[in-house]
């Protein structure tokens, strides 16, 4: 058989059965076509911190970059990984085989890592903006993967470090029992111990099916720890904090360290309960004129959900990907390692994160900000939730290069 993949896919398309699929496309000469796949959680725990708002940010990036005026025809497709690594990896494999040039977003570290393995195997650009695990730029890094926005090292050192500095020396963890929660707990524990504190207990709950945290919260309460460390994210964090409030845990003086809290979560919890929480993000919409301008542009596409750092990462990552592809020529867009190398070469600049860069291990290097959640009376405009406490430079935000065992970095 001398059929090429293109004729095969074309044949399959003419069978007419593939209407629901991301269509494979032939790269016609003179017509600069790209396909971007947003793989996210559209129905579960992480749908608010990824999902539709991530898709909106990708569309906004394409619009702001002026793709149409530059002669590009860019298609954005989306898929729900349902927080299952096998579904995510299968979807990524299918997309890459059918001509998707770049895959972005992907909340949930287990899925994020599974897709990184596929992207590495298929040599396709993969920009993860929404998984926390620092393994993406550590032991599991590869030449096709870039990790945007934030990671567990940043969260554990910034939020964890700040809580210890405030005098929270004994901790009890409630951990989402998968790649993300385990790593975040372990890294935060290391920070606590290095600062002379101790971890008195830990309970791992089954993810993603847990919605009732009462038994774990009671264990935390009876442990007598000063700080309740939440090594979870999304709706799990919202539920944990709300339920902790209902049980009177916060009122009794135990502090909550939400190690990964997004703006969307604060909105879900409400300022009445969330006030005073300390958290870390690398993007906040009300930070400066550029972030406000970006947010104003994207809001009509996602009216009820302001972008968080992960979703703003979709904007920033897509923008930089388009710049890199444009610089090297669209015919190279399918070559993941080449695109990623180009992206690492160019400094990034966009309204969401400002001027940043990408390190050779695939780590997006940007500053991070320690915020405190405002009291209900202090919030003047909708979604105005944060007071800035401290800015950490990019170099101090992330693990030093070559300390995390990434094979791409020659020691």
């Amino acid at each position: 058989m001398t059929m090429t993949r293109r004729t095969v896919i074309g044949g399959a398309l003419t069978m007419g059965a593939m209407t629901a699929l991301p269509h494979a496309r032939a790269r016609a000469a003179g017509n600069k076509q790209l396909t971007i796949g947003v793989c996210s959680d559209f129905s579960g725990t992480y749908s608010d911190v990824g999902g539709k708002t991530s898709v909106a940010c990708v569309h906004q990036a394409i619009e702001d970059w002026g793709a149409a005026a530059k002669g590009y025809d860019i298609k954005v497709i989306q898929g729900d990984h349902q927080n299952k690594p096998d579904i995510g990896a299968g979807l990524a494999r299918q997309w890459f085989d059918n001509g998707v040039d770049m895959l972005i977003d992907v909340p949930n570290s287990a899925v994020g890592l599974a897709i990184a393995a596929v992207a590495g195997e298929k040599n396709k650009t993969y920009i993860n903006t929404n998984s926390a695990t620092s393994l993406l730029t550590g032991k599991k890094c590869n030449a096709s993967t870039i990790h945007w926005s934030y990671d567990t090292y940043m969260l554990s050192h910034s939020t964890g470090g700040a809580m210890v500095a405030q005098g929270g020396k004994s901790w009890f963890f409630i951990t989402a029992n998968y790649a993300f929660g385990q790593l975040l707990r372990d890294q935060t524990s290391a920070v606590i111990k290095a600062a002379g504190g101790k971890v008195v207990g830990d309970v791992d709950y089954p993810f993603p099916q847990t919605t009732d945290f009462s038994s774990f919260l009671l264990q935390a309460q009876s442990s007598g720890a000063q700080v309740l460390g939440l090594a979870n994210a999304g709706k799990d964090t919202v539920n944990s904090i709300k339920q902790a409030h209902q049980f009177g845990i916060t009122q009794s003086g135990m502090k909550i360290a939400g190690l990964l809290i997004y703006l969307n979560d604060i909105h879900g919890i409400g300022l009445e309960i969330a006030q005073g929480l300390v958290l870390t993000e690398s993007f906040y919409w009300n930070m400066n004129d550029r972030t406000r301008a970006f947010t104003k542009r994207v809001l009509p596409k996602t009216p009820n959900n302001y972008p968080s750092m992960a979703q703003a990462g979709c904007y920033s990552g897509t923008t930089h990907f388009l710049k890199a592809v444009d610089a090297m020529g669209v015919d190279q867009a399918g070559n993941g390692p080449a695109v990623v190398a180009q992206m690492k070469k160019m400094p990034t600049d966009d309204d969401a994160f400002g001027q940043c860069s990408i390190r050779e291990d695939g780590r997006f290097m940007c500053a991070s900000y320690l915020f405190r959640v405002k009291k209900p009376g202090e919030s003047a405009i909708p979604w105005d939730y944060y007071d800035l406490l401290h800015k950490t430079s990019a170099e101090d935000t992330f693990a030093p290069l070559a300390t995390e065992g990434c094979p791409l970095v020659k020691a």
Partner: protein
Amino acid sequence: MFGFSRAQLISLVILIAVVIAAPFFVYPIVAMQVMCYALFALGTNLLMGSVGLLSLGQAAYFGLGGYTAGYLVQSLGLTPEIGIVAGGLAGGLLGAVFGWLAIRRQDIYFAMITLALAQIVYFGAVQLTGFTGGENGIQGIPRSALFGLFPLANDHAIYALVAVVFLIGVVFVHRVIHSPFGQVVRAVRDNEPRMVSLGYRPASYKRIMFILAAVLAGIAGGLKAMVMGIQTLSDVGIATSGLVVLMVLLGGIGTIFGPIVGALIVIAMQYYLAPFGAWVIVIQGGIFVICVLVFRRGIVGELAYRLKSPL
């Protein structure tokens, strides 16, 4: 010929032709998934069709096969064929133990025992993170070279492997059903007291069938882990056990080609309806209800009934 009826022989030829042509027309990964699940369903049908026992825990053997193969290939660096064979053996061993327990009861009690045992395996998989990776699963299983010689990285190369194993599986299942052994098993299903009075030991026959089903499930699980490069809790959970029963029912209990058609329909649905996300399960449920109400023999079963020839 070889115990195949005329209609079965024609069907087999068509099946082989479809298997050879498929990767040039459809996405090979999906075609391979169909074959893995079809093999799994063929094994399950040995129990449901020939022995007349409904097991709700077949995913335990499927998942264990996948984990065993994934672990051996990824962590120990062994070659895929060893992984797949070991997956089959692991499934068979577990099946021997569980079968020994479960076949003491019949009907709903049998189903419940298999379900309970499979749930034990599921929660074991959640906890034994050193072996299974817990919620993360075993990720990035390499498609290393078959026998250390033939690279499988190309989709069409591994497709050939899956196709060969699958077709051998089809012929094997047909032989089992049409052997003297298979006839005894069917007789046990239809009238167990009579077989006892004739001097047979029904329990041994049921147990062997149970183990065969588990071995096929284990091999199918191992193959799937090699194809997808990932092995997770989804494959060992109750949803997968239900899925394979659905495949058998949809295609036709007790037919050779029914489970294959069932697997094709269910996997194709999962693939083409993927944009609907979690709704796929609801749609599957609806189809199951329609199938039970409208054609209880299943698609191939109904066809065989019309043709008055076993398929």
